[in-house]
């Protein structure tokens, strides 16, 4: 196909993919094209180069034209061009002409030191190929047992073992220099012989050439002096894109000797929001149809970089900031910036009744009472929302509820630490919450805890976490948002942390002792510091914080204070960001980072400036958690309606409307008791105790199990799932326990049926109790019908049942 035809074909394809007007307008509006790199050098191992062609529009905005532009070599014999990827053919120099619309750019090309394939390094060249092709992934040859007898270390974490697996094992069938193409590693990968994993590369690819060359060179390990990758860099790092459009990435690895190499086709790509934009193995980003943000993680040889993609609302104009959306605090400006960038207009402010219910449930896990709703909605004071926030934050229910939330994260589990341990630990957490003690202080106390677990609450932390490895995983995830699980066994696939980092942390807990005092109590202490070894390979690792200074071994001192200082330091960005993100998620329905406790670099926040602001605010207040909550609750962002507008319907990321969430298990059970006026009774707890107050998470409760109370088996709130099940729906609809509460002779219905309220008043009362607002016209009509069709008592029971099953009751809006 001639380049011209090629160009038309690509353009036609682009036209069918994009909307015709979009591409037409774009090409016409292109003022100039810019090409990266500005000169191409193909030499030695750097055998192919990815071009990125960017069109600059009149308004200065940019659009990717890489796969639209016509790319032509003056001397086509020097290199082939496929999807803007130049692969060397023979040595020489020429010019490349890049043409898009009316714009033309020309860059030089030089192919040198090419005819002889340079010496190949197994670890530097061959191993990345296995990662890229997925051979050594945990689902395939990388798993512990290997696959069909061929085992590689997961993600290439053990290059020597992989080298042996290829070159020395398999009775010489895996690599076969005598007939390269019959080597199993080659023939299976290109699909010549049957392979359970299918064809992984094509025979005419650079990857295949590399593998052939390595076998031809006699399967060398490579020179020990060979340069190693020092970093990788992606371009562009941030790009505003249209929905359903493409962007070519270009990834360059820089080696320890300063040499660079284009690794666009050798790197692996993954998206944190594939719906918004995804990236294929050629480094081409494809955006979806919805507006939003995504991060593409690029990894190569254990190094990572991120390219962020922003897709504004298609067809929408930049929103005009409504006059009511003033800046209560910085949060409002920072969310506004994001809406402006994405062209999303926020919903209206929510009404008073919605606000009251929302703020009460989110802070204190408790529904407002009837009188409270009436008073609040009738109040005309301009400060009334601020006052409600203060009252909620100061309430006893606030203390109970947040004690429960933190007990979930800290795994206060009577199954693993016993009843006494759970009670003492729970009481201790309650004390921290009640006095609003600075967060960094009480976390410090947990990390260094020692003593009699029957008296020292946080000492029980070390009864649930029994090995140095357990503690390491828990502390990293619970307080830093770093998931070290992967690094216990192999280098983290999307992070810079490896096994040495894991065991560097684990060293702080090595030797921790639990001396049994009696059936319910242990004496917890650290007898002195001894570094720990990586198991299997038995390599001793220096005890040190992540990226930190080693703590010298000293077998008479407890080293944990060193770690605790590092963890809770204001200089530790993870510490403040994680807790800020947790609180934001709890109050707003979604974390700025999701999952909320996975703060790795390659999982960036949807609004980094906002997360920074929250973390800085927290630090400025000396880790006053209540102050940060007040900051969030006061913002307009918290007080938006959950009802979407035209442009923000599909937005789940930027908080342009409030995110509707189901009442958590404990809160819902309490709400059912509160509404019906009939409490539960829990063994070992005083009469009238509420589910949010329970210190024992193992009390039998079909309701709490069905609605997903936290199992407290991992250091996150993920055990307390809001995920719906059929058993939940059936329980709400049919449970005899709930029906008994509705019909109870001391309950709400009984009281109301004896009152002299008329039907309208009864309906109003039930709506106020359940959904904490006046009834809608539909609810009045439905309620009237139910109440008129049956006896007063039965009608009340039926209407209460209906309201307790309505989404406005089950969800916080």
């Amino acid at each position, binding site marked *: 196909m001639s380049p011209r035809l090629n160009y038309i074909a690509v353009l036609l394809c682009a036209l069918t993919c994009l909307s015709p007007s979009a591409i037409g307008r774009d090409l016409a509006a292109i003022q100039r094209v810019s090409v990266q790199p500005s000169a191409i050098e193909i030499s030695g191992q750097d055998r192919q180069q990815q071009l990125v062609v960017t069109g600059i529009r009149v308004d200065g905005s940019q659009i990717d034209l890489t796969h639209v532009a016509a790319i032509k070599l003056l001397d086509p014999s020097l290199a082939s061009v496929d999807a803007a990827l130049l692969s060397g053919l023979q040595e020489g120099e020429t010019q490349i002409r890049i043409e898009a619309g009316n714009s033309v750019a020309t860059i030089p090309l030089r192919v040198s030191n090419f005819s002889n394939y340079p010496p190949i390094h197994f670890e530097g060249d061959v191993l990345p190929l296995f990662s890229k092709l997925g051979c050594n*992934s*945990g*689902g395939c040859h990388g*798993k512990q*047992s290997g696959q069909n007898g061929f085992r590689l270390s997961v993600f290439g974490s053990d290059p020597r073992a992989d080298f042996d697996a290829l070159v020395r094992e398999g009775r010489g069938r895996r690599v076969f220099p005598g007939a390269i193409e019959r080597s199993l590693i080659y023939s299976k990968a290109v*699909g010549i*012989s*049957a392979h*359970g994993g*299918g064809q992984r590369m*094509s025979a005419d690819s650079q990857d295949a050439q590399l593998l052939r060359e390595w076998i031809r060179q006699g399967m060398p390990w490579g020179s020990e002096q060979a340069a190693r990758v020092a970093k990788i860099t992606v371009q562009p790092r941030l790009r505003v894109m249209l929905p359903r459009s493409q962007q070519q990435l270009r990834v360059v690895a820089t080696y320890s000797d300063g040499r660079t190499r284009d690794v666009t086709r050798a790197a692996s790509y*993954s998206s944190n929001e594939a719906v918004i934009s995804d990236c294929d193995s050629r480094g081409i980003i494809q955006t979806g149809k919805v507006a939003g943000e995504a991060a593409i993680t690029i990894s190569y040889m254990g190094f990572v970089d991120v390219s962020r993609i922003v897709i504004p609302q298609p067809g929408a104009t930049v929103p005009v900031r409504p006059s009511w959306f003033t800046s209560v605090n910085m949060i409002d400006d920072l969310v506004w910036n994001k809406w402006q960038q994405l062209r999303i207009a926020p919903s209206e402010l929510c009404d008073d009744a919605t606000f009251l219910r929302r703020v009460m449930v989110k802070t204190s896990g408790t529904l407002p009472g009837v009188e409270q709703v009436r008073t609040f909605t009738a109040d005309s004071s301009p400060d009334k929302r601020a006052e409600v926030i203060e009252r909620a934050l100061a309430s006893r229910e606030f203390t109970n509820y947040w004690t429960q939330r933190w007990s979930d994260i800290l795994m206060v589990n009577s*199954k693993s630490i016993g009843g006494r341990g759970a009670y003492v630990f729970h009481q201790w957490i309650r004390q921290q919450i009640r006095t609003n003690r600075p967060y960094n202080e009480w976390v410090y106390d947990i990390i260094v805890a020692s003593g009699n677990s029957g008296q020292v609450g946080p000492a029980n932390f070390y009864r649930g976490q029994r*090995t140095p490895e357990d503690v390491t995983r828990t502390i990293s995830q619970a307080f830093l948002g770093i998931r070290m*699980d*992967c690094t216990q066994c192999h280098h983290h696939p*999307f992070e810079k942390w490896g096994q040495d980092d894991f065991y560097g942390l684990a060293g702080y807990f090595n030797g921790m002792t639990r001396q049994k005092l009696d059936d319910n109590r242990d004496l917890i202490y650290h007898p002195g510091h001894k570094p720990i070894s990586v198991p299997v390979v038995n390599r001793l690792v220096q005890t040190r914080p992540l990226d930190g200074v080693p703590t010298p071994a000293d077998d008479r001192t407890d080293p944990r204070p060193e770690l605790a200082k590092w963890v809770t330091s204001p200089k530790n960005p993870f510490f403040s960001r994680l807790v800020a993100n947790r609180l934001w998620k709890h109050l707003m329905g979604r974390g700025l980072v999701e999952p909320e406790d*996975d703060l790795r670099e390659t999982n960036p926040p949807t609004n980094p400036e906002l997360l920074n602001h929250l973390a800085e605010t927290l630090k400025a207040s000396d880790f006053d958690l209540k102050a940060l909550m007040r900051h969030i609750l006061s913002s307009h962002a918290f007080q938006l309606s*959950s*009802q*979407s507008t035209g442009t923000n*319907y599909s937005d*789940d990321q930027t908080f342009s409307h409030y*995110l*509707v*969430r*189901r009442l958590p298990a404990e809160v819902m059970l309490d709400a059912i008791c509160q509404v019906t006026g009939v409490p539960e009774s829990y063994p070992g707890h005083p009469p009238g105790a509420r589910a949010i107050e329970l210190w024992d998470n193992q009390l039998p409760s*079909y309701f709490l199990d069905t609605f997903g109370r936290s*199992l407290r088996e991992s250091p996150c709130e*993920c055990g307390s799932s*809001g*995920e*719906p*099940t*059929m*058993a939940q*729906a*059936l*329980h709400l*609809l*049919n*449970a*005899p326990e709930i*029906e008994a509460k509705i*019909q109870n002779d001391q309950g709400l219905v009984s009281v109301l049926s004896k009152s002299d309220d008329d039907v309208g008043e009864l309906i109003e009362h039930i709506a106020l109790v359940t959904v904490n607002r006046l009834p*809608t016209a*539909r*609810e009045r009509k*439905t309620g009237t*019908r*139910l109440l008129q069709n049956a006896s007063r008592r*039965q009608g009340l029971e*039926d209407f209460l*049942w*209906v309201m307790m*099953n*309505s*989404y406005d009751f*089950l*969800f916080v809006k």
Partner: protein
Amino acid sequence: MRMHSKTNRRDFIRMGSIAGLGMADIMRMQQLSAADNGDRSDVNCIFIFIVGGMPQQDMWDLKPDAPPEIRGDFRNISTNVPGIQISDVLPGCATVADRMAILRSLTHDDSDHGRGFHIMMSGKKPGAGDFNGNQNNNQHPCIGSMVSHLGRPSVLPPYISVPNFLNSGGPSFLGPSHGPFVIDADPAAPDFSVRDIALPADVATQRGRLRQQALQQINQFEQSAERIGRQVRSFDTFYNKAYNLMASREAREAFDIGREPEKIRDAYGMTSIGQCSLLARRMVEAGCRFVAVENGHWDTHRKNTYSLRDLLCPAFDQAIPALLNDLQDRGMLEKTLVVVTTEFGRTPRINDLAGRDHWPNAFSIVMAGGGVKGGQVIGATDKQAAEVTDRPISPEDMVATVLYALGIDHTKILHTPLGRPVPIADGGKVVHELFT
């Protein structure tokens, strides 16, 4: 032993390459052959878990020539299949051996109850943790949750467990939506009823209908007016499923074991395993895809002979043949896979308390129906039923086989919330010779 469909596929690929077909053609054919068990998606499963450890050498794999301390007190009897013998404690099963495949070569290496339970319900050996508590402890989804996650939807919950939650029957990272619907009652109890599937009796049917109509009006109205979030929508899905269940007389009646004729109930036996098996059949008949039945107290560390002969096997030996016969009579056997499995077997040597202890090295399980060719024995053990001598079958293989029988791709890779790829059956291979 050759694996038919896999061999075909591989042969085909090789032939394809020789014949000069393009790679794309071959890929396409691979996809086609991957779907070649798609017609099994109407097969359902009754998964009976014998908790405690089912003694292989007293039930399915007797060693009459072994010394008395190994042989035990039971003797082989002939079955209705010439050449297949099982224990004289299972005369009922002997009459349906033509429908059963006896797998005598199961093997794994964990003799802990909780961990063995996990291994045999999920195919995955768990890492550290407490596996003997009574809470969901799954580190890998159990087969029922896999079926719920990957199988077709149904009016009834796709995965039901009876008479209680099976300790290793949890969904793990697949999430609560794929946990079992637990029938938290024993259908052998006189007052048996399934919780929450209908309004309490005192709220009359007519009244219940009124309530539901009123509720649907309000919720529908809210939805159209507000276009509310995803969480509400997914909850709505389950509300609708609940309505469908409550509205479907067939489904609701399926839970009511009292509707079953006395004659049939008696045939299964008025025992826990009997009535659970019967209820499981009713569930499958009404469209459930996977029913897990638990039957406990098989941990015969003492008085093994007495326990088996007088307490455990009579109920078992009545229920299993009754189930297979009933399924056959109703024309359901071909589409219902019955698995009788356990954590592990029991020690070859009888201990000082006249019991047998835990033995995972070699043990037997039984499969029938769902395309399994009956009247066969797969695998063999040595002269003490201590080690596998032929055709070892791993728990992973068992999981792969059950998934295959239900038309579910057993090579599927699942992803944990951390993004870690987890092969569903961990490389387990289908025991293809089971199938006709």
